[in-house]
């Protein structure tokens, strides 16, 4: 049984179908990263699995139950999605926003319980946002803000986290910080994480499994060692990538890349 999987999933926007007949199963307790060129359907897949986007056909199963048969509030106790570029009112304080994460666990209008308070403190603690809990969102830097949004998602205390490009717009230190938090969540709480990343070296370092998408299809999936290779990268991105293994831990690193030299080579990469 998979914790989250899709069956013959078809999704898209209005008339435009991004992918169809997509079968994909998320491995429980692992970090899975989806990579692929812009417009390949990574975000669409993530959003459809997180019921943010309604599928056109097919089914998403959460713990083997059809997502559409579950109440959205029940889903929110098991799964959360952090959108690509979340926005909230500037006047809201950090702690208020993180408290919103408790919504699925509250009965309407109910005051927060000790469990809620503990979850909020934990979320602020693990994301290191506790020191500026009383500041307003509008006064935060991009990196601080992203950690606050992550904390809100964590306060939901879900077993599954879907993160849509959580490191976009952040400097390299903050990118690392966010990914370390993700790793820590996976190690300490066995959270199942699916994220979309553009940086393949981050994908290699922080995931157990990498899924490569192209033009609405999953073209390859496997461990970082299997996936971050010149062959796969050529097939997915049509690039001539140069990859080596980090001598310290054997993690593959793409240290340079270039366009494929000839048309023939590019076409050869496709097939």
């Amino acid at each position, binding site marked *: 049984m998979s914790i989250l999987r899709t069956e013959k999933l078809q999704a898209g926007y*209005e008339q435009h179908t991004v992918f169809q007949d997509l079968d994909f199963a998320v491995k429980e307790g692992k970090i899975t990263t989806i990579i692929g060129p812009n417009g390949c359907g990574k975000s669409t897949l993530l*959003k459809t699995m*997180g*019921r*943010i986007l*309604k599928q056109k056909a097919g089914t998403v199963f959460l713990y083997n139950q059809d997502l559409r048969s579950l*109440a*959205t*509030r*029940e*889903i*929110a*106790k098991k799964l*959360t*999605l*952090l*959108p690509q570029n*979340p*926005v*909230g*009112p500037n*006047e*809201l*304080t950090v702690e*208020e926003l993180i408290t*919103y*994460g408790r*919504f*699925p666990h509250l009965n*309407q*209008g109910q005051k927060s319980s000790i469990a809620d308070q503990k979850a909020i403190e934990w979320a602020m603690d693990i994301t290191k946002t506790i020191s500026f809990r*009383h500041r307003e969102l509008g006064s935060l830097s991009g990196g601080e803000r992203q950690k606050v949004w992550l904390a*809100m*998602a964590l306060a*939901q205390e879900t077993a599954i986290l879907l993160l849509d490009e959580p490191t976009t717009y952040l400097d390299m230190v903050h990118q690392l910080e966010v990914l370390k938090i993700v790793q820590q969540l996976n190690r300490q709480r066995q959270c199942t994480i699916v994220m979309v990343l553009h940086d393949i070296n981050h994908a290699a370092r922080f995931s157990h499994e990498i899924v490569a998408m192209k033009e609405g299809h999953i073209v390859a999936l496997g461990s970082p060692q299997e996936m971050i290779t010149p062959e796969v990268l050529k097939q997915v991105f049509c690039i001539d990538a140069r990859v080596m293994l980090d001598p310290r831990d054997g993690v593959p690193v793409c240290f340079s890349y270039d366009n494929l030299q000839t048309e023939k080579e590019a076409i050869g990469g496709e097939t």
Partner: protein
Amino acid sequence: MLKYSQERFVGIMLTALGLIVAAIYISLSYGVFDLTFAEVVKTLFGSQSNGEYDVLIYQFRLPRIVIAGLVGAGLGVAGAVLQGVSRNGLADPGILGINAGAGLAIVVFMFFYQGKLAGTDWFSILAMPFFGLIGGLAASILVYLLSWKNGRLDSQRFLLTGIALGSGFAALSLYITLKMDPTDFHTATVWSVGSLFHANWQYSISILPWFLFLLPIIFWKAHILDLFQLEESSVKSLGVSVGREQVILLLCSTGLVSACVSVSGSIGFVGLIVPHLAKSLTGIRHQRMIPLCAMLGMLLVIVADFIAKNIFAPAEVATGTIISLIGVPYFIYLLFRSKA
């Protein structure tokens, strides 16, 4: 530490309450015929029975103040809800075509039936508000259905549809009023600007059930409006049934607006100004902001109605005109500030 504390909120609410009491007292005692403080208190609490004062206060001034208070509270709260649901700070019941819809229904009603319903029984008094209510609800359902796209409510579409339908309804109303006889035409015109001239106890009682039923639901749902300040994917991810909550909140505010419009005509700008004022005073938490909107709305309409009654006494200005005079500059100010 925190800019908007609970103490501050309580302080603001008490201040607003004090101002409302003062406004009520002034409205009761000043007018074409002035009363002293002692006379007002004695008449209100029944220790002195003077027929003239009783009539003045109980038949003329008090019902009008009560209606003004209810209408103000209703429009203020409805405005806050509409702005929250549409995620647009410029949403207002007037802009969304609810007033125009109610107006059209009332004009149609007057055109066909007014002459035949000259009685003073409950039915003829309440028939007009009832038609207003139906018109307002129908208009907002239409706006909602037309702005529904791809399984979600698009806030831009919502506003534009409201404006478009509102203009359509207003044009139709105008066309019908032009075909009326002069008396009906005058009544219809005054009504369309918003006036409390016809205030009476039956009106208060007819709209009270809406307030008793809808306000608690809105207060109960206030925390969901907080979540609506985030973008839609975050709200969905938190487990809010976005579509369902939008419909509930929208219906609640429409019910309130339609009830208000049915007895006061189309008073604009209250629902637009009051939420902004409340936000700047007590912050963006709806559990505080919405009760404050009720208070500020009350205060605004009671004061505006007092001015409307007395500024050119014995002639009367429509209450809606006074509010517009305050509202238009504030609206323009908001537009400029949101651009910056």
